């Protein structure tokens, strides 16, 4: 039984009316309050209560992403379609036809095209909905184990039958069906590992813990005995947050955190069996609440088009007004003498000229309705869908390595790709591989250059390029896989997991999962096999040896020279200061009996108990240590610490602050070693590190190269294997995770050798350097080390390496105790928890002792410099917005040719707003200010100067630059620079920069990034591109397009962007032309029929002309035409500028096309007019040739516009013309009395027997298209000239 909070009390049977009232009240109530949800076990409440039908207000686990049901489809779909203004307009016109006074066509017929369009859209929606239904069904019918009260065991049930409050049991590699609170696990520590690739794309394993109190259960978890009540938040979409508490029968409360929640769509890994209670089901799960589906944006072209549609409306109104006035005058001229052909109204009275004019205005709107292209929107949608299809299918946008291809997530902005002006790129993971390779390090001021490692990397690079060559020739994946067996195993493993992903969650989830499924998570051999620097290796060995000696001789560790101890700590920090999880392929951890239970210190009593040197406590505790469970009030307490001899000694030592006695120490870890041997350690070093970020993995692998290997990580301890010393187990007291504000992470551990409490911190150099211990008297040496390290750090940055500083702090017991107190408060607070934890972390990460620094190389992705060069040639401005430090960013910029060495670089580093504005003013004068570094003399802006400027600005300065008062100056400066680099920028700043450029410069912006920190910028930009890289899927989820690699941007923009843009622009223009030309024919006729609104074109042709006869060729051209072949577009990036300048569709082009339409319609009207003038021709025998001519002209016009002819083009054109003749011929013999007023019986047949018909059909299109055809070769001349010119310019550049 599960209910929302306000309905918590059991409802007795109430009369229906009352119940209704209750419901109403409840609804009102729900709006106001009810911020929590209460979940109880469904197994409770037997008896009459259970008989009651489950009128649960909570969603069950049935997945329903369909929009419609069989009944609601029609009304709901129509309702949705009428949200589109154009549809309302067309229906309005069709309905206008039902008014007899103004009707122009047979009302039923006039409805036809509107219905056709609506039907096409409806069928499309229906099909989409049906496929959704099918996949829903598949997911709904997946099976999982749910506890059944009657059978008293877990039974197979469909996912859709799972309800909130049910108990679900999951096995290894099963997919989680709902959001489940973890209550029991086969894991000894009550852990459960899950893979969240389906949710966020991160392939590393995450740990989840069971609710604390249930850990102490000595027996198997029994759902029937579960009587606690869970209070938690209402369903929300925040994946990283879950709060609540569980109230036990005893009235005690435990907090619940996100670590306790298993999210739907994730996969259970490495854990044999877990059980939990369903908290959120179905659409209330976090996974589904996060699934927002494809995004809809409006492209620039469409915005421009809409303006022109408005122009069309205006033209329509003018034409109608003109006709109305004309008709009024026409009626008026006859005065009282009504001519026989002016038919009176139904009542026999003649209309007054004014009234006639008013009626006629409405009639004309119907007659001229075609001017607003009814099929335009549908056609555009179809064309875009096809364009998306082709982009998806492009082999060049497929990445073999990750087996992923381009993904269009926004379906309707393909043409924007062809109009980009600014690219804002993230650096890490976007330009670079985000494969971190350890390159060099410096420890206590001494640099170890790792030359051998560098040589090895160079070899990999060579091998890579060789491989590519062979891959290009042979083109198989096998060779790549054979590089390491480990990798291939991994691939297999991943593909296995991919399979299961296919069945999960929703389609989107599955899609996301499969993109990443083959990612080898940060562990290519290049990253793993690090050749150690011989010097450092020697020192490490020496250090370890002396440690061993010291230990065996009971010497205090402090006897180690500072350098060696730094080295030792350095590697310990590399190994343990992270969140890397050690796994072995696919094996759940065994359930082992544990002799020792340690946990992060959770309560103050815990701390006291552990560290108070009170024999009494230890004694009392050791008495109970024979059983694993301690008193109920202290969950997971490490009472057993105190039970073993080693703990005894620990306490002793704590008291005496002495070094370990060797014996005890030996005892300590030999026993541990024994234990671990049963545990997860697989043989032969086949350990896999699952890291949250690639840097972490790189560091761990680096440490392993120095024989300092991470072998196991539990929630409470980290095991490290060291040379000579063997395995050391650090008690992990706290992990203070990384965040982008602190820019560092720390672990608090107890050192097994010294038994001190150590804080190891790893973070960005700028941050760490500020947190270092103020120099004490003996700090002279320390100071030297710091400045040396800083020098090396700068050196690393110049080499383009990512730098991290490693620091350590030794905490005294008192310090730790006081910190712990506040930290525990922070941890246990339910509100404001994050904020308090942050503060708490800040408190402990001070007074650090610098150990050393590392330089990690993040290799550039393949083809990045070339891509950037090409995009640049295409006139795209490329800005790099990165959170990295300035030097690193500049170096990457040089490496990817964004900056040139002969380029002058303006660096803006300002401390305050005043300074910033000062420096800005200085820029206008050739002097360098104190805030401007590397400033160059500035000449007045000219093109030559533009290309030689680069702007580098850091985060602080950027904040000033983005200030309202300065943003214009900043932009004008940035515009004059060839490239702009923003370093140290926060995600918010990134998006602000993009927004600034987008809004102020009215430019088309594209943002590309791969990580969560790029999401805001991706969302702000006109087109957001996500890289489906190893950093997770947040960027991809927010993006409009997801590409596997940065280099794919080149083809996406230069080729597909150009094509999509030019195709669509041409099609839209053509649409306007076509409709205008057709309607103008009718308009000219009004001059010869007394502006009475009659049309010489049969209403069938009139209505179906757009939809049937002339639609196919333009669709084919819109989808398939290639104005310039792909190779040329890539080879001559210069051509991309046509899209940026909107050359294909400029405002004046609309009018040019209108004028052309005017001319063509005049020709098509007056040639038949004069030919048949003063003859016995009847209205429709004259109108039919006009229709034919118009069709010929329109199709030939398209033929001139078409640049390449494929079979589809030919057949669509021929098909259209044939279709017209067939329809006309059939229609004209079908019924002698139908279709008033035209009643075209035998018209076409008769016409086709007359030579004049053919003569007109030949001459009219020729004359109509003569101007366009004459200009056409000239246009092609220009195009060829541009290609040659651009190509030559490119070559000239290449030579220089």
């Amino acid at each position: 039984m599960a209910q929302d909070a306000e309905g918590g009390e059991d409802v007795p049977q109430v009369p229906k009316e009352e119940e209704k009232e209750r419901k109403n009240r409840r609804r009102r109530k729900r709006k106001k309050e009810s911020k929590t949800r209460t979940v109880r076990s469904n197994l409770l409440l037997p008896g009459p209560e259970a008989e009651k039908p489950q009128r649960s207000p909570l969603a069950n686990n049935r997945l329903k992403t369909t929009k419609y049901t069989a009944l609601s489809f029609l009304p709901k779909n129509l309702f949705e379609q009428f949200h589109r203004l154009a549809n309302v307009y067309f229906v309005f016109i069709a309905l206008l036809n039902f008014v007899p006074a103004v009707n122009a066509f047979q009302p039923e017929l006039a409805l036809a095209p509107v219905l056709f369009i609506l039907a096409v859209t409806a069928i499309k929606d229906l099909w989409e909905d049906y496929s959704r239904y099918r996949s829903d069904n598949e997911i709904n019918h997946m099976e999982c184990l749910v506890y059944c009260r009657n059978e008293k065991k877990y039974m197979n049930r469909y996912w859709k039958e799972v309800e909130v409050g049910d108990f679900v049991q999951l096995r290894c590699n099963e997919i989680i069906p709902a959001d489940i609170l973890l209550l029991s696990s086969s894991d000894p520590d009550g852990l459960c590992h899950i893979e969240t690739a389906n949710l966020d794309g991160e392939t590393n394993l995450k740990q989840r813990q069971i609710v604390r109190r249930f850990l102490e259960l000595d027996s198997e978890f029994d759902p029937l005995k579960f009587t606690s009540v869970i209070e938690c938040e209402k369903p929300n979409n925040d994946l990283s947050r879950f709060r609540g508490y569980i109230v036990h029968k005893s009235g005690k409360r435990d907090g619940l955190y996100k670590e306790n929640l298993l999210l739907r769509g994730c996969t259970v890994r490495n854990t044999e069996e877990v059980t939990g209670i369903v908290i959120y089901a179905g659409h209330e799960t976090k996974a589904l609440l996060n699934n927002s589906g494809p995004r809809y944006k409006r492209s620039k072209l469409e915005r421009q088009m809409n303006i022109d549609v408005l122009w069309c409306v205006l033209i329509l109104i003018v034409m109608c007004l003109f006709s109305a006035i004309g008709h009024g005058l026409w009626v008026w001229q006859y005065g009282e003498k009504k001519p026989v052909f002016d038919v009176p109204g139904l009542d026999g009275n003649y209309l007054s000229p004014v009234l006639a004019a008013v009626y006629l205005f409405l009639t004309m709107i119907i007659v001229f309705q075609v001017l607003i292209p009814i099929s335009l929107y549908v056609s555009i949608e179809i064309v875009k869908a096809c364009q998306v299809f082709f982009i998806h299918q492009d082999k060049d946008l497929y990445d073999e390595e990750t087996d992923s291809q381009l993904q269009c997530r926004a379906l309707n902005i393909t043409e924007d790709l062809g109009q980009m002006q600014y690219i804002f790129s993230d650096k890490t993971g976007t330009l670079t591989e985000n494969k971190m390779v350890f390159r060099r390090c410096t420890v206590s001021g001494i640099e170890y250059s790792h030359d051998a490692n560098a040589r090895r990397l160079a070899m990999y690079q060579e091998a890579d390029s060789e491989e590519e060559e062979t891959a290009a020739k042979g083109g198989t994946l096998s060779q790549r896989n054979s590089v390491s067996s480990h990798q291939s195993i991994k691939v297999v493993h991943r593909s296995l997991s991919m399979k299961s992903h296919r069945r999960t969650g929703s389609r989107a989830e599955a899609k996301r999962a499969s993109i990443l499924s083959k990612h080898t998570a940060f562990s290519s051999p290049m990253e793993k096999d690090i050749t150690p620097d011989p010097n450092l290796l020697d020192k490490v060995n020496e250090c370890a040896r002396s440690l061993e000696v010291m230990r065996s001789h009971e010497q205090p560790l402090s006897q180690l020279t500072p350098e060696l101890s730094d080295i030792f700590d350095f590697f310990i920090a590399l190994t343990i200061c992270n969140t890397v999880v050690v796994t072995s392929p696919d094996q759940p951890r065994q359930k082992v009996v544990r002799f020792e239970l340690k946990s992060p210190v959770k309560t103050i009593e815990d701390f006291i108990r552990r560290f108070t040197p009170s024999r009494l406590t230890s004694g009392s505790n050791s008495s109970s240590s024979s059983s694993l469970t301690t008193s109920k009030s202290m969950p997971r307490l490490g009472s057993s610490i105190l039970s073993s001899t080693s703990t005894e000694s620990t306490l002793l030592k704590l008291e005496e602050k002495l070094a370990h006695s060797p014996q005890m120490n030996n005892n300590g870890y030999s026993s541990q070693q024994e234990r671990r041997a049963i545990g997860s350690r697989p043989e032969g070093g086949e350990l896999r590190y699952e890291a949250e970020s690639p840097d972490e993995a790189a560091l761990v692998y680096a440490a392993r190269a120095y024989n300092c290997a991470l072998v196991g990580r539990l929630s409470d301890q980290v095991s490290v294997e060291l040379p000579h010393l063997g395995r050391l187990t650090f008690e992990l007291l706290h992990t203070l995770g990384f965040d982008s504000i602190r820019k560092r992470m720390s672990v608090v551990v107890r050192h097994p050798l010294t038994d001190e409490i150590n804080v190891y911190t790893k973070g960005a150099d700028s941050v760490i350097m500020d947190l270092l211990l103020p120099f004490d008297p003996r700090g002279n040496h320390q100071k030297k080390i710091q400045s040396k390290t800083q020098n090396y750090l700068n050196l690393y940055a110049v080499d383009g390496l990512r730098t991290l500083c490693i620091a350590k702090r030794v905490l005294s017991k008192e310090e730790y105790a006081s910190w712990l107190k506040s930290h525990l408060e922070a941890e246990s607070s339910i509100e404001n928890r994050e904020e308090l934890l942050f503060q708490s972390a800040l408190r402990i990460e001070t007074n650090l002792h610098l150990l050393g620094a590392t330089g990690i190389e993040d290799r550039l992705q393949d083809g990045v410099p070339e891509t950037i060069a090409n995009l640049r040639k295409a006139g795209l401005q490329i800005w790099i917005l990165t959170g990295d430090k300035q030097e690193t960013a500049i170096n990457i910029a040089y490496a990817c040719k964004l900056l040139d060495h002969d380029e002058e670089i303006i660096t803006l580093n300002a401390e305050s707003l005043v300074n910033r504005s000062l420096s800005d003013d200085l820029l206008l004068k050739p002097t360098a200010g104190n805030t401007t570094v590397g400033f160059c003399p500035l000449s007045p802006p000219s093109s030559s100067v533009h290309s030689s400027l680069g702007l580098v600005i850091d985060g602080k300065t950027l904040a000033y630059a983005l200030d309202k008062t300065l943003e214009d100056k900043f932009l004008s400066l940035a515009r004059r620079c060839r490239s702009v680099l923003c370093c140290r920028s926060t995600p918010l700043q990134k998006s602000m920069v993009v927004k600034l450029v987008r809004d102020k410069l009215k430019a088309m912006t594209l943002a590309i990034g791969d990580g969560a920190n790029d999401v805001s910028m991706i969302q702000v930009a006109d087109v957001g591109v996500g890289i489906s890289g190893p950093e997770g899927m947040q960027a991809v989820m927010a993006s409009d397009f997801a590409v596997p690699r940065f280099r794919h941007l080149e083809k996406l923009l230069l080729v597909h962007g150009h094509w999509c843009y030019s195709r669509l622009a041409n099609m839209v223009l053509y649409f306007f032309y076509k409709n205008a030309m057709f309607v103008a024919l009718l308009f000219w006729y009004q001059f010869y029929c007394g502006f009475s609104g009659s049309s010489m074109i049969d209403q069938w042709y009139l209505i179906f002309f757009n939809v049937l006869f002339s639609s196919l060729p333009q669709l084919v051209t819109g989808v398939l035409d290639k104005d310039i072949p792909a190779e040329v577009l890539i080879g001559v990036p210069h051509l991309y500028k046509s899209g940026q300048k909107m050359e294909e569709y400029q405002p004046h082009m609309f009018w040019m096309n209108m004028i052309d339409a005017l001319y063509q319609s005049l020709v098509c009207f007056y040639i038949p007019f004069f030919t048949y003038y003063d003859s016995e021709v009847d209205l429709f025998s004259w109108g039919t040739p006009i229709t034919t001519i118009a069709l010929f002209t329109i199709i030939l016009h398209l033929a001139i516009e078409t640049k390449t002819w494929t079979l589809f083009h030919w057949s669509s054109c021929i098909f259209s013309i044939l279709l017209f003749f067939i329809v006309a011929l059939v229609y004209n013999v079908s019924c002698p009395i139908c279709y008033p007023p035209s009643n075209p019986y035998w018209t076409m047949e008769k016409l086709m027997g007359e030579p004049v018909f053919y003569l007109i059909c030949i001459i009219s299109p020729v004359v109509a298209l003569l101007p366009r055809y004459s200009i056409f070769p000239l246009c092609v001349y220009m195009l060829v000239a541009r290609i040659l010119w651009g190509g030559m310019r490119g070559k000239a550049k290449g030579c220089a």
Partner: protein
Amino acid sequence: MKNKNSQGAQESPSRCPDNSAFKQQKLPAWKPKLTAPTVLSSFFTIGVFCLLVGICLILYARSVKEIQINYSDICLNCSKLRENSSNWDKECNCSVYFTLQENMLGDVFMYYRLQNFYQNHRRYVLSRSDAQLLGQDVNIQNSNCAPFTIYPNGTPMAPCGAIANSMFNDSIQLFYYLNSSTAIKVPLLKSGNSWWSDKNVKFRNPTSYNLSSAFAGTTRPPYWQKPAYLLDEEDERNNGYINDDFIIWMRVSAFPTFRNLYRHLRHTNQFADGLPAGNYTFHITYNFPVTKFKGEKQVVLSTSTWSGGSNLFLGIAYTVSGAVIVLAGFIITAIHLKLRKKKTYFQR
């Protein structure tokens, strides 16, 4: 389900898109080659073709003989009489004399021509009942004929609608003066002037044992002088709805100035080859008022060719556009030659 999944995985080991020409947008395609020779030759070919056709057409059109006589001016008395609708039952006759300078050989057609008569007015075009004209018994009150459907006394009009009501009802006869005193009636055919499909498919009289009973219970339209079944008393197959004059009138013309085929020459005796040159006279019974809408009436005699009537327009259009295209060809040639000389064109 597991099976299915594993199969699926085997089938799609890679997400690599197909390397098919269609999907990679590499379909074999023809690119129009726009070299100077192809463009220019297309210009010249089309131009010359148009010129030739144009000249042909002009020659043929000029061979057509045509005479047009405006009789609403000549029969001024009758026009004035008809201006007042109360005189509708007064007969008014009028003779128009003219001389043919040349023989009109071959088929000779007689047309009446109306000016400023807007048969193409929207509501006028609508105002008919095709079902009624097909002889079906329909309730014309619901048809488009309104308001020309029934009289106030309830009798329906046959045929109904404004088109039928305003039918041209002058009768024109042509006499040929063998000499200055004797005139013989030129034999003209009343039937065979309309479209075959109209006469045989679209128009049908109501079925009954005779025509007058078929129209029983209906009355003529208000402007008509006699009921529909008396349109041609001499020829059963040209009476009622299938009267050729009626059928032709019902085919509304495209322009306010139009001609309708009225009669064509029957080739007998003197007229075996057509109309010989000489003096003629039209005897016109003037019924159809045109002054109300400032219209004029003409009677036209004309021969025809395969390319239509005497209208020169099409020929001229071909000739002129042919000339323009050829001229354009020359201009483009000139530009091309100039550009080719200037080799630095592309190397700005």
